[in-house]
């Protein structure tokens, strides 16, 4: 289970770290488990503190935007304005 969750999270979990991760997650979920005893039938779930509507901007081109060079300056590997990744398609 924990291995599957780690994979879903795209985080490697070496075998030698698995037991500790399992026991710490068990600790956290035993803390969280107390929630289950609270009666919440009919309570509307709260997603957000403010009851605001999603604001929309007009569908127009922006005058200013950052250049590709600036946006890619922190890329670990890039070439000719493209991000480099390991080969995906054989």
């Amino acid at each position: 289970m924990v291995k599957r969750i780690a994979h879903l999270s795209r985080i490697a979990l070496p075998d030698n770290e698995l037991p500790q991760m399992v026991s710490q997650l068990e600790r956290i979920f035993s803390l969280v488990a107390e929630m289950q005893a609270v009666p919440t039938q009919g309570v509307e779930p709260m997603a957000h503190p403010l009851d605001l509507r999603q604001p929309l901007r007009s569908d127009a081109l922006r005058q200013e935007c950052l250049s590709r060079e600036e946006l890619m300056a922190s890329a670990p590997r890039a070439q000719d304005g493209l991000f480099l990744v390991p080969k995906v398609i054989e």
Partner: protein
Amino acid sequence: MELHQMGVAELSAGLRNKDFSAVELSSTLLQRLRQAQDNLNACITISEESALEQARAADQRRAQGDSAPLLGVPLAHKDIFCTRGQRTTCGSKMLAEFVSPYDATVVQRFQKAGMVSLGKLNMDEFAMGSSNETSFFGAVRNPWDLTRVPGGSSGGSAAALAARLLPAATGTDTGGSIRQPAAFCGVTGLKPTYGRVSRYGMIAFASSLDQGGPMARSAADCALLMDVMAGHDALDSTSHPQAAGRFSAALGRSVKGLRIGVPEEFFGEGLDPEVAQVVQEAIQWYVRQGAEIRPVHLPNNVHAVSTYYVLAPAEASSNLSRFDGIRYSHRSGSSVDLQELYLQSRYEGFGPEVRRRILVGSYVLSAGYYDAYYRKAQQLRALIREDFRRAFAEVDVIMGPTTPTPAFALGAKSADPVAMYLADIYTIAVNLAGIPALSLPCGFSKAGLPIGLQIMGNYFADELILGLGDAYQRDSDWHQQVPGWEEQ
């Protein structure tokens, strides 16, 4: 009084009277920041050159007749706020090399006001922690006792303020990350109403809880910072249209007739008796000024920590999925395929606490568990908000301790995540509800560690709670006590 001992208001007056220049002031503080690094480790980056350039510009603006109130006053930003052309790490190896292409709105607003940014402050990695020990750049130490934590996640901000390295700093608060370190270090910090301070350019941890805020050595100084910091921002879709305010103008109010709610849930088991006593004495000060105490109940506060540790990791697991090792974060050197690149880059780039929380988040959002955890926690969140609604129908503010204990020892809780989480037991509900809360120093433990009073207000009562903190500070000197870290 020496320059480094002055607060924002005094520095503002000194600059206006031309007692000293912005360049002199910034040079003095830059030197202190550098000297304190070995002992406190409060900074991740000290940007000497750019700071002096900003200070020169501020002096020039003043020479040309500009009289903006904070012109030339120095501050530093928690390293979660993006600063253009400058490293922004969020306390993580993942972003150790990241140079932001843009400024956070908060950074921009302070820049426009003429404040001089001296650098970037240390913090728990991705703001996940209550002790500053999860930072990739090493733990920060508490200036009151170098063997103790400064609190977190805005630990660098709180330690730098307490040590008189800076008059002002920014922080962020997702579950207590401004208030808890403020309490541990004996400084003042405001977690504003959700939506008053723009989150644009503030690296996201849990977007429905995250809120930037001011940290300083007094509530009055926090108000001056809020004057600049708060305001609607079209670049943040959760920014409130009525975010702006004249916070400093609202100071100097009377306490007479104020109704203070004191929840018994904040004074129960787990609260250090010394903290309880000091906080009760502070509340009594308000009573002597004509306030009245009314008992209120926050029965669901007991569920705040568990609710938070479902919702915050869930949001974090989504927010932190952007760090893929490809566009702008740490990239593992050893990977042969794309899958492996993701797995390894994220394993190497994130520290153990961040990895743990992402796993918790992925779990509670995964198919088959959503209703039992995520939806359930959202329902509890509604109940917690309802508690506050009911209480604020009866009282103007709620007061209690900020933390259950004074600052704990470095390493004391780092092996047990749950023990660490419980350090935020009095601060988390405020974020879940989205209301504002202030922490200010109100005394010391026998061991000489600061203790914080927390004042919680209703939505948009930021001005009121700052005013109440200021009233107390006009008649007390807890916030003026100076730690002896330089002699330790």
